[in-house]
């Protein structure tokens, strides 16, 4: 009997529930008004472009009407996968990303462990102030300064940039770094280290600020030396942050950044400096091949989602918090 009653009452309950919701919505009308500008932004500039990825399946380029462009199925994708550019882009992107992961990723961690050892507070502050600066400077400025530092002498007998001179003295050769394809990876890596190592420590130092000082005192009483303290107290305190940052890094493995590479790119180093992001720009925005370059971008986005999900899954499986 009770069961039947429940079923018969259900539509009424639903109605009441719906009415309640409506009154709540009415009551919150000002809140919805506040949400409106932000919602419009997300719809227009985030969700409409998501729907716009459909042009990846069209033969659509600059100068023709979007609605007239013929549907071509997966041919943009098959064109891309069979193109010789594909492997080159993949290789460049993975090399740039991989070098960042191997050489750059550990640096902020090491630097924050070192900073944490500095007990003279004003000195520590001063060091932090200096190493954070490059992060806030425009990529255009970073690249321009690089340009000035590695430039070759404009006229024989004059000096080149400081880094050019150093390399010349070390190797005995006159190297035009930016025009040599194999060097561009190192240029990008060093720029990245210069710009982001200092800033990268902020998040680890925030985690370290939460460590209870008594832990160190207890360890000292137990006779732990500095390295032991670092290894058994400081480092474990930031492991979860390291894993979080690692997941983020893995999820962004195909994101090599756009501004930096497009600024350092020239015709001579393009074979090694072209990555997914710059390729999408060069083929889509510069050459106007919208459909094809959207396909390339979509491919990249999908791989990225797979990367971040699997990194997150792995982190969770190993007992870490994961991201979401």
């Amino acid at each position, binding site marked *: 009997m009770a069961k039947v009653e429940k079923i018969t009452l259900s539509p009424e309950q639903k109605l009441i529930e719906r009415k309640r919701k409506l009154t*709540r*919505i009415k009551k*919150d009308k*000002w*809140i*919805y008004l*506040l*949400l409106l*500008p*932000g*919602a419009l*932004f*997300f719809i227009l*500039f*985030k*969700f409409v*472009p*998501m*729907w*716009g*990825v459909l*042009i990846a399946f069209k033969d659509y380029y600059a100068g023709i009407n979007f609605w007239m462009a013929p549907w071509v199925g997966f041919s943009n994708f098959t064109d891309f996968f069979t193109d010789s550019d594909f492997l080159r882009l993949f290789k460049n992107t993975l090399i740039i990303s991989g070098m960042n992961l191997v050489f750059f990723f550990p640096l902020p961690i090491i630097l924050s462990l*070192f900073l944490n050892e*500095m007990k003279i507070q004003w000195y520590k502050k001063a*060091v932090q102030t200096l*190493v954070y*600066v490059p992060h*806030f400077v*425009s990529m*255009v*400025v970073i*690249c*321009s*300064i690089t340009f000035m*530092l590695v430039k070759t002498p*404009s006229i024989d007998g004059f000096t*080149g940039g*400081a880094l050019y*001179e150093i390399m010349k003295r070390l190797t005995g050769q006159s190297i035009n770094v930016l025009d040599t394809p194999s060097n561009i990876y190192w240029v990008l890596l060093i720029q990245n280290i210069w710009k982001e190592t200092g800033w990268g420590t*902020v998040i680890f130092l*925030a985690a370290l600020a939460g460590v209870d000082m008594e832990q*160190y*005192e207890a360890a*000292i009483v137990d006779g732990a*030396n*500095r390295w032991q303290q670092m290894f058994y107290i400081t480092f474990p305190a930031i492991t979860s942050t390291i894993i979080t940052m690692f997941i983020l890094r893995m*999820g962004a493995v195909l994101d090599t950044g756009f*501004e930096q590479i*497009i*600024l350092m790119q*020239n015709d001579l180093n393009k074979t090694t400096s072209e990555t997914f992001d710059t390729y*999408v*720009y060069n083929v*889509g925005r510069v050459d106007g091949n919208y459909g094809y*370059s*959207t396909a390339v971008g979509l491919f990249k*986005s999908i791989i*990225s*989602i797979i990367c971040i999900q699997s990194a997150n899954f792995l982190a969770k499986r190993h007992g870490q918090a994961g991201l*979401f």
Partner: protein
Amino acid sequence: MLTYKRKTIGEIIGDVIIYAVLTVLAITMVIPFLYVIAASFATETEILTRPLFIIPETVTVDAYKRIFDLNDYGTRVFQSLGVSVGVTLVGTLASLFFTTTMAYGLSRRNLVGRNIMLNCVLFTMVFSGGMIPTFLVVKGLGLYDTYAALILPGVISAYNMLISKNFFQELPAGLEEAASIDGCTDLGIFVKIALPLSLPMLATFGLFYAVGYWNNYFGALLYLESQEKYPFTLILRNIVFMAQAAEADPNVELPQETLKMAIIVVGTVPILIVYPFLQKHFAAGVMVGAIKG
């Protein structure tokens, strides 16, 4: 820390190494900037003969005279600085407006549809339509080659918005209740109570947005066509990297090295001016945990 235990020799050596390494590192990171500033005040000959210096032998402001001379580079420089300053001011205000209104709305826990909206925002952080579809939307809206294109497509950073949402959520609920009993509408509560209480947060995000707008290069490259609308970053790029592009054209006069240095300095100085304020507000902006919840 523990004064009763004297440092061992090993610890002292460790200290010396740590302090030495970090000092060298910190100086290395800023030397390129110091060099550029010094070189902008040096003579052309000095730049061409000394690879690195931080104090010029002869100090001259000729380069600055040229870049601010209206008959020389001045027109382009002032025009683009005007664009950059305008976009930074308007953009920062717009960003704060869009970010806080949405964040405040989403901070209401019992709002109908809140979870759907939050999930949508989170989704945009992992997946995006990409450069070209976004470009086509901007074009379709008639924003191509307008200043609005430098602001609107990135007016909200989802990350900043979620952090401010969490901030508003932490505000004591009693204040809002009291205000609504006194007959204040939600709009009034937002303007008169929530915003004044979040001034430090507004300052933080304002500064971060402002730096972003000032430094923005990508947006201008993607969405602008007319040279006279270029912000300073594009002019900077054009002048410094001109040597490469001009190799093909012998008629173009190459800008002097001092001039390039001075242009770089002009692009960096505003950042250095706000830097002390920025530094105060670091920690608030970088809580990754804030994404959750």
